[in-house]
């Protein structure tokens, strides 16, 4: 029995090391495959966003289709700090994360009693409210033209200065570090008793309730946490673009994130990252080749929903298991 456990955890450790190695070495192997560093940075940020959605969707079983709202709020928060208040990247990230997370906490409290399709509709509608505010309140957010200009500021780390503005590779590693921190936090939460409770709620909400678990409270906490992660990813996105715009809040952006999570595998931790890689690379590639790339994306959605509902990782696990 202990040998089996060692084998399983050994395999997991090997997988983890492999993933980290691939990410760290990305600026070197990507150009060989026709990629470019900026693509990798984008994949990391969107992958983190997909993982944040999955935190709620895959591990608690709650479908929020308006999660891009927190992503966008994070982006605007970070941008506004850099533009109006202080030229400090860490402060921007902090502000963006707090803004989105707190907004999510407030909203979550209002809708936590709803479930299923209705919950999804409500999250879509509320997400659009924020989209609409960003679009209309042009004196603050810049409206359709977006919040600009602001630039990510070089980091002064005491011993050295990391020029993340002009050096694409340096910026990639900065984002990677941020990514690892967030992912580690996520993994920690999921392994904790709280995380186990979330899984219990996902599996059978009624039974969890009978066990005395305060379900609404847990869902609210899970919702809030995922909003914080989402806003964090949004802040990074603002740094990637040196820009924040309403499109980041639109429900179609939410749909993209959910798609990435589903495509990679909702029930697994790394699935959404894989989904993000496939989605971003696919979109990048197809849109360079044909103007009608949206049809291909649409077909991808349809294909995944009909034939690969468990996502790529789920599909692979099935084959290994069967």
């Amino acid at each position, binding site marked *: 029995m202990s040998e089996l456990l060692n084998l399983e955890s050994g395999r997991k450790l090997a997988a983890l090391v492999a993933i980290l190695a691939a990410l760290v070495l990305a600026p070197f192997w990507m*150009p060989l495959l*026709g*990629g*470019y*560093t*900026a*693509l990798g940075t*984008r994949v990391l940020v969107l992958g983190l966003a997909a993982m944040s959605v999955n935190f709620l969707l895959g591990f608690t079983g709650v479908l929020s289709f308006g999660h891009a709202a927190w992503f966008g709020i994070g982006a605007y928060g970070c941008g506004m700090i850099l533009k109006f208040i202080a030229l400090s990247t860490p402060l921007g990230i902090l502000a963006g994360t707090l803004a989105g997370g707190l907004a999510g906490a407030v909203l979550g409290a209002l809708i936590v009693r709803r479930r299923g399709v209705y919950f999804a509709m409500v999250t879509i509608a509320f997400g659009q409210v924020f989209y609409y505010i960003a*679009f*209309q309140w*042009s004196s603050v957010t*810049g*409206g*359709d*033209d*977006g919040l*600009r*200009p602001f630039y990510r500021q070089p980091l002064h780390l005491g011993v050295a200065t990391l020029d993340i503005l*002009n050096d*694409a590779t340096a910026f990639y590693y900065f984002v990677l570090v941020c990514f690892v921190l967030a992912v580690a936090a996520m993994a920690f939460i999921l392994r904790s008793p709280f995380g186990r409770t979330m899984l219990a709620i996902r599996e059978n909400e009624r039974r969890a309730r009978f066990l005395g678990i305060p379900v609404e409270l847990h869902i609210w906490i899970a919702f809030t946490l995922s909003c914080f992660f989402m806003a964090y990813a949004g802040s990074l*996105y603002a740094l*990637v*673009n*040196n*820009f924040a*715009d309403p*499109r*980041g809040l639109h429900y179609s952006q939410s749909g993209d994130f959910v798609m990435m999570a589903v495509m990679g595998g909702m029930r697994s931790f790394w699935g959404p990252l894989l989904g993000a890689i496939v989605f971003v690379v696919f979109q*990048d*590639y*197809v*849109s*360079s*080749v*044909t*103007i009608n*790339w*949206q049809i*291909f994306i649409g*077909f991808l959605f349809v*294909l995944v929903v*009909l*034939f690969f509902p468990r996502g790529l990782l789920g599909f692979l696990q099935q084959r290994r298991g069967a």
Partner: protein
Amino acid sequence: MTKRLDFGAVDRRTIVKAGAVAGLSQIAAPFIWSARAADAIKVGMVDPFTGVYAAVAQNELIGVKYAVEQINAKGGVLGRPIELLVEDSANDVGIGVQKTRKLIERDGIQFLIGDVNSAIALAIAQVSNEKKVLHIVSGGHTDGITGKDCHWNVYRVCNTTKMEANSVAELLFNKYGKKWHFITPDYAFGHTLQEAAQADLTKFGGTVTGNELTPLGTTDFSAYLIKARAANPDVLLVLPQGLDMVNCLKQIAQFGIEKQIHVAGLQQELESLEAMPPEARVGIWMFEWYWKQPGVPGVEKFVADIRKRTGGKVPTARTWFGYTSMMSYALVANQAKTLDGVTLAKALGNFELPADVKLQPNKCYYRAGDHQLMTSSFVGEALTKPAGDPEDLFKVDTIVAGDKTSPPESETGCTLQWPA
């Protein structure tokens, strides 16, 4: 689990595989034929080919492609052919920035054209500036591009909002009256357009009876038109563009408003006029370029050549923007005999376009102080009945030169900082 998907004899694996092969062959095909010339000069174009600006972006592309053909037929730039790489910004800033980085970092373009969407144009200008790549904004109108957000490596072909307002304002004031009511799209382009027009109006001594700010994407203008009617102005200025303009004018025609109030506006485009039913084509407008210019050298050939490539459709102002942007690069590079971004950027200052590129009667040149092309405004009236050719929907009354409509360089707010 697999039982639910009952395809009979064919199982899902086969279908997916077949689909994948069919799909991949579609995508892979271009790569099979492209034998990329090793010594070609790569130029990039980033434009929103999907989304609300798709029609105008596609017309710009036609112009650029035609220019590339012409350039390569005459020996290319410095003896090397031009290779055009096109990316879709999908009207999304993040994607536009990403594609620009891809074009510059991975594909090594020497020259960038784009974007129609002003916000994206500004964002990718930051990238092209960072990478020291010469960049011509073909179709983004926001004044900042050659104003307070100007960069040494960025030039712009299309008009600024101030130029557009200045070209029509006097005519409207003298011909129609001094009480103006505005319908303004609620974003930066709309705001600056309206402010410019209002400034002109105040200068002439007129008054503004109201300014209705309409959200982008408004489909129903009835509430705003009701208010405009009640305010009883002499002129109703319709400033929204694209689909918003089409809807607004349609509703104006349906409500019969043009019978009581003079309808006019600033920027108008052939793409919009063609999307309208005939009764909505009313009012005085300015075009940034129009295809029917009898007697002006080069225009007829351009129109005929473009018609061959579009199945009979005439070039629009957007086609001309794309054409001019690409030709400008080739001309200045061949003249300066270098591809260095900084040198070319300096050389484009005060560069005058030859007759077969400018395709207009007035002198047309890039101003050195703000990098704005001094292109003419074609002021005239929309035609309910086409004048002969079904695409002749605009009657040009006057062609005003760019340096007459544009404020002086000192007033644009542009300070260029050249690299050391």
